[in-house]
C-alpha cells in the first residue's frame, strides 16, 4: 500500500509539469521566453534570430496577432542594425509579409498602424531618392490612423517625431519640430501600461536617445 502510494506520489510529481503545459499556457510561455530574448537583442543578428522565433510561433498560431507583430518588429530592428544590403532587403521583405498579415488580422489596431508607419519609414530610408513620393503619404496616413484609434498611444507620437526628425528642415521637419512630438510621447509613456506583458511596450529607450539628440541641437 505504502509502495503504491509512493509510486503514485512519484508519478503525480512527474506528471505535474506535463499537465501544466496546457495549450494556452504553452503560447504564453513561448511568447514570454521569446520576448525575454528579444529584449536582450542589440545586434542585427540577434534581432533576426528573435524575429524567426516569433515567426515560428506566428506560423503555428495563425489567429494570434502578437507573434506576427513582434516578428515584424524584430525584422525592422534587424533592418536598421545591419549594413548588409542583401540582409536589409530580406528583413524588409519579411516585415512586409507580417505587416500584410497584421492588416488582415487587426485592421483597426493602433499598434499595428504605428508599426506599419514605421515600416514605411524603413522603406523610405532604403530608397531616399524616390521614397518620399512613394511612401510619404503612407507614413502620415498610418500615424494619423493610430492617433485616431488611440490618442494615448505613446509610440504613435514617437514614430511621428521620428518622421519629423529625419525630414529636412526645408520640408517642414527637423529636430525642433520633432522635439515637441517626442515630449508628447514621453508624457504618454508616463501614463502608459500595456494590456498584458505580451503587448507592445517598446520605445522608451529609443525616445530617450531622440530627446537627447534634439535637446543637444537646441543648446
Amino acid at each position, binding site marked *: 500500500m505504502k509502495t503504491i502510494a*509512493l509510486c503514485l506520489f*512519484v508519478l503525480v510529481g*512527474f506528471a505535474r509539469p506535463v499537465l501544466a503545459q496546457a495549450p494556452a499556457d504553452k503560447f504564453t510561455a*513561448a511568447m514570454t521566453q521569446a520576448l525575454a530574448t528579444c529584449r536582450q537583442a542589440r545586434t542585427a543578428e540577434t534581432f*533576426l534570430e528573435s524575429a*524567426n*522565433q516569433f515567426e515560428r510561433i506566428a506560423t*503555428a498560431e495563425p489567429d494570434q496577432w502578437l507573434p506576427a507583430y513582434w516578428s515584424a518588429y524584430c525584422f525592422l530592428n534587424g533592418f536598421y542594425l545591419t549594413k548588409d544590403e542583401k540582409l536589409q532587403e530580406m528583413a524588409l521583405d*519579411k516585415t512586409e509579409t507580417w505587416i500584410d498579415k497584421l492588416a488582415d488580422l487587426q485592421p483597426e489596431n493602433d499598434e499595428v498602424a504605428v508599426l506599419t508607419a514605421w515600416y514605411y519609414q524603413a522603406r523610405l530610408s532604403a530608397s531616399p531618392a524616390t521614397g518620399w513620393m512613394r511612401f510619404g503619404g503612407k507614413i502620415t496616413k498610418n500615424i494619423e490612423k493610430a492617433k485616431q484609434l488611440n490618442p494615448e498611444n505613446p509610440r504613435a507620437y514617437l514614430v511621428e517625431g521620428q518622421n519629423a526628425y529625419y525630414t529636412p528642415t526645408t*520640408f517642414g521637419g527637423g529636430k525642433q519640430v520633432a522635439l515637441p512630438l517626442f515630449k508628447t510621447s514621453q508624457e504618454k509613456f508616463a501614463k502608459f501600461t500595456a494590456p498584458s506583458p505580451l503587448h507592445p511596450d517598446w520605445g522608451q529607450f529609443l525616445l530617450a536617445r531622440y530627446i537627447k539628440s534634439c535637446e543637444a541641437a537646441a543648446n
Partner: protein
Amino acid sequence: MRPILFILHFLLIALGALAQQPSTVRGRVTNKAGEPLPGANVVVKGSYDGGSANAEGWFSFTTTERGEQVLMATFVGHRPAEQRISLNASPAEVEFGLEETPNELNTVTISAGAFEASDAKKITILRPLDIATTAGANADIFAAIQTLPGTQAQGDQEGLFVRGGAASEARTMIDGTLVQNPFFSNTPDVPARGRFSPFLFKGTSFSSGGYSAQYGQALSSVLVLNTNDLPDSSQTSFSLSAVGLGGSRTQRWARSSLAAEVDYSNLGPLFAVVPQNIAWQKAPESLGGGLRFTHQLTNNQTFKVFSSYRQGSIGLAVPDLLQPFSQTLFRNRNRNAYLNTSYRASFGAAQAWTLQAGASVSYDRDEIDWGSVRLGRHEQRVQGRAVLTRALGEQSSVLAGAELHRYDFESQFNEWAYRPHDTYAATFVEAEVYVTRKLAARPGLRAEHSALLGRANLAPRLSLAYKTGPYSQFGFAFGHFYQNPDNRYLFINSGLDFEKAIHWIANFQVVRPKRTFRAEVYQKNYRQLVRELNVAQFDPNRYRQPSGPTDNSGSGYARGLDLFWRDQQSIKGLDYWVSYAWVDTRRLYQNFLAQATPTFIAEHTVNVVARKYVTSLSTSFNASWAWATGRPYYNPHHPEFLGERTPAFSNLSLAANYLTRLGGHFTVVVLSVTNVLGRDNVFGYRYSPDGTQRTAIGQAAPRFVFLGMFITLK
C-alpha cells in the same frame, strides 16, 4: 522492500528526466547551388521549436517534440522545403537545399523594343519621376520620351518619331484604349505639348517597335500609359507660374477617391518678356480641367473613370497656303474632350483569371482661319475593349481580347467638306510562355478589320528573351504591323489598303540596380505605303490636301542602332543617362519623287540627361543636352531629291527644382530654361516658287523660360 521503492523512485525520476531530455536537431540550409542562406528559419512543423541559420547556413536547436515529425525550412524568395525526421535521443542531422522562387534576378523579362518606367519593380530602367523631371521636357511625357534612343525630337512639330517612322505611326494608349489626340492642336512650325501630366500615371511603357499583339493601328510605336490607383490621402494643391495658374482637389474615402482639377494658361505675358521669333497675334491661351474617379470594389476589383476637357485658342503669322513665300494669319480655336472608363477584376482559384474592360471617347475639334481660307477639322473616336487573361502556372499566361472602334473624322475647306467614318474591329490572342526561367517567348496574333477600307489583315507578333546572367539578357522581336492610311488620303480614296511595317529587333541589356546598358539593332521594312501617282513637282507643304490618284505602291526601310547607358553610381549623387541612335532610312511614299530620307530624320542623335540633388540647397538640378546631325530638306535646284542637309542641331536645357515650405505647405519652385545657349537651330528651308529665295524654318523662340510654383496643402 524499502530499497526497492527507493530504486523505483530514482528510476522513475531518471525516466522522467529522459522523457524531458530535449533532442538536438542540426544541419544546414543552402540554396540549390549550395550557397548558405543566413537567417533561414527552421521549424518543427506545428510546434514553436526551431532555429535560425547562421552566416554559413548552419543551424542547431533543441526540441522536446518526439517521434516522427516534419521539419520545415523557409527563406525569403525561396520555396519552403519540408523533410520528415525522427526525433529521439540521438541528434538529428538535416540538410536543406531551397529552390528560388521566380524574381527579377533569376527570371527573364521580355524587353526587346520596350522602355518601361514603373515603381512596381525593384530594378527598372526608369521611374515615373524621371519622366516628370527631365530638364527641357517641362513635365511633358513625350518630350521626356524623346531623350530615349530611337526617338527624334522635332523642333518644328510635335509627335513621337520612332526609328524612321513619322509621328502618325506612333499611338498613345491610356488604360488600354487609344487616345485620338494626345497632343495639343498642331500649329505650323511650333511643336505642341502632350495633353496629359506625367503625374497622372503610375506606369509608362514606351515601345520603339515589336510591341504586343494587344495593340494595333501603329506602324512604329505605342506609348502605353496606366493611370494611378487610389491615392494615399486627400489633398489640395495649387500651381502658379509665369504662364498660368491651376488648382486641384483630391478626396479620398475608404475605398474610393475623386480628383478634380482646373487650370488656365496664357503665354501672352511670358512672350512679352522673353523674345520670340514668331509674330504672335494671339498667344496660346487655354482653359481646361479633369475629373478622375477610382473605386476599389474589393481588393481584386477596380473601377476607374478618367476624363479631361480643354478649350484653347492661338493666333500667329504662318506661311501662306495660297502664296507659298508670303506670310498670313493663322488662328485656331480648339476643343478637346476625353473620357475613359475602365474596370479590372481578378477572380477564380488563386485569382488566375483577370478581366480588363474599358470604354473611351476622344473628341477633338479645330476651327482654323488660315489667311482667307476657313478650315475645320473634327475627330471623334468611340471604342470598347475587353481582355481576358488566364495565368498558367507560376509565370506563364495566355490572353484573348477584342476591341471595337467607331471613328468619325471630318475636314472642311471653305464650303467643301469630307465626312468619312470607319468602324474598326480587332481581336487578338497572345501567350507569354516561360519555357524555363531563362527563356521566355511571347507569340501573338492580331486580326483587324476596317469597314472604311473594306479590308482585313492578320498580324503575327513574336518576342523572345533569353537570360544570360543575373542582370543581363538577350532579346528578339518580330512582327507585322498595320495602320489605316492618313486621313487626307482616305478623304479622296477609300479603296486604299492598310499600310504595313515589318519589324526585326535584337537587343542585349544589362540592367543593374544603379547601372543600365542597353543596345538594340533593328530592321524595319515598310510596305503598301500610300503613294500619289503622276506627281510632276514635289510640294513640301505638310498641310496640302492631295487630290490626284493614289495607290499602295510605296515602300521603304529603316535600320539602325540604339544605345542607352544610365549610371546612378559612379559619381556620388549624380544620376545621368546617355542615349545614342543611328538610323539609316529611305522611303518612296506620298508625293516623293524618288526614294529618299524624309525630312524628319537625323542620321545620328545623342541625348545626355543628368540630375543632381544638392541637399544643402534643397534643390534638384537637372540638365539635358540634345545633339543631332542635320536633316534633309527640299531644295528645288539640288539635283538629288531631298539631297541637302540642314546644319546640326544642338540644345542645352537646364532646370532647377527648389523644394521648400510656404506657410507650412510643401512647395516646389521650378525654374527651367530651354536652349540656354540661344543656339539658332534650323529645321529646314522654304523656297520661293521660282526657287530664287529661301527662308529658314527655325525655332519659335531663341529660348523658352518657365518659372512656376506648386503648392500642396496638407
